[in-house]
């Protein structure tokens, strides 16, 4: 980008990645240690509850106005853990869907800010999806153990 001098697109400015400080090697190793702990915690979640998959919304909202999709917490957790994840479309926004109060945002100021994007009247015909995460897929070095996904019995 320095060579071409091209401007940065608004979405990239808004997502905030351009202002994230880097880390050093020790910091990178620490990230990896925490990630390994997270993998253990989520294995425990599956085993303690004896579940085959997790089902959840794929995002807190439907399609948002241009350049406003800036949060990926619903999705990137599965990249972090390297779990297979599929999005399944289910329904559309309906005229009966109505915005509610910002006080229903449960998780603090950042949550309220995102929730406020969706308090205007909803646009019909925007579709909804659910996100399903098939069983954990773990590998150690190149040997893979998988459990059945819940669709078509395909093992991933």
């Amino acid at each position, binding site marked *: *980008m320095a*060579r071409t001098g091209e401007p940065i*697109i*608004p*979405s*990239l400015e808004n*997502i905030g*990645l351009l202002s*994230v*400080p*880097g880390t050093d090697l020790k910091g990178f190793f620490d990230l990896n240690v925490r990630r390994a702990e997270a993998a253990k915690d989520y294995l425990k*979640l599956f085993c303690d509850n*004896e*579940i*085959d998959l997790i*089902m*959840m*919304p*794929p*995002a*807190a909202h*439907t*399609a948002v106005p*241009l*350049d406003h*999709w800036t949060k990926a*917490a*619903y*999705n*990137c*957790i599965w*990249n972090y853990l390297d779990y*297979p*994840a*599929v999005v399944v*479309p*289910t329904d*559309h926004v309906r005229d009966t*869907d109505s915005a*509610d109060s910002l006080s229903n*945002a449960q*998780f603090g100021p950042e*949550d309220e800010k995102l*929730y406020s994007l*969706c308090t205007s009247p*909803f*646009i019909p015909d*925007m579709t*909804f*999806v*659910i*996100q399903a995460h098939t069983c954990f897929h773990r590998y150690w070095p190149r040997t*893979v153990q998988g459990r*059945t996904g*819940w669709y*078509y*019995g*395909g*093992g*991933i």
Partner: protein
Amino acid sequence: MPPLFGLPISLKDSFQVSGYDTSTGLGCYVDEPAEENSALAAMLIDLGAILYCKTNLPQTIMTGDSDNNIFGRTLNPRNKSLTAGGSTGGEGALIALRGSILGVGTDIGGSIRVPAVCNGIYGFRPSVGLIPHGGVRDVTTPGTDGIRSTAGPMATSLRDCSLLLRTILQADTWKYDSTSISVPWTDLEPVRKLRIGVAQNEGVFTPTPPVRRAFNQAVDLLRGDDNIEIIPITLPNVGSYYQDIISYFALLGSEVSGPEPCLIL
């Protein structure tokens, strides 16, 4: 006949296809046609598929709107004031418009699934290495091994996503990409009642009313199936993991480095 004979498949622009640019929405990569196919493009051609287009994505790939200074902005086919998502937004919109019947994207932080949400289609993020990723342009610093990108299908049905996955997994991916993990496709049948852990949210952002309604409708539908058991769960620690995930995406910080012409993340 090869299993994908005659099937047109669209690819995200970041997949190298011999003779064509892999500009990936960055000016510094324009007019530099690829000299060879990416591993997946090579596989798909060998399997009989027809590669006919590559689709738009964001500048640097790493954001949720497929907009760049080379090709412009992909709009949502249902409503042009809304995003088509990213980074595989071009695929999402094209498939929603039925300009493609099967496409392939990549996903490092939601880039298959966000466009699937925005365009009402299916998008599957497999674990890393199942679908060959070699020859996909990736703006992360070469040699870093943080959160890895993975390639996966996007389509208007799960059947079609399965078709791509099954065909690729049955075709010796290790021959095309040294980083792939060649796992056989196994047609397992469930041996007991399926236990689905249902999480209403990830503990960081509250789903809006239409999302809550539609999600609960889906859960109720599944609850009514005798072969399925619904177990409410809470996802632990997503907020703290999210901070680490952002750190992984910017290990060296965000700086334009001298000898490299492009933004390093």
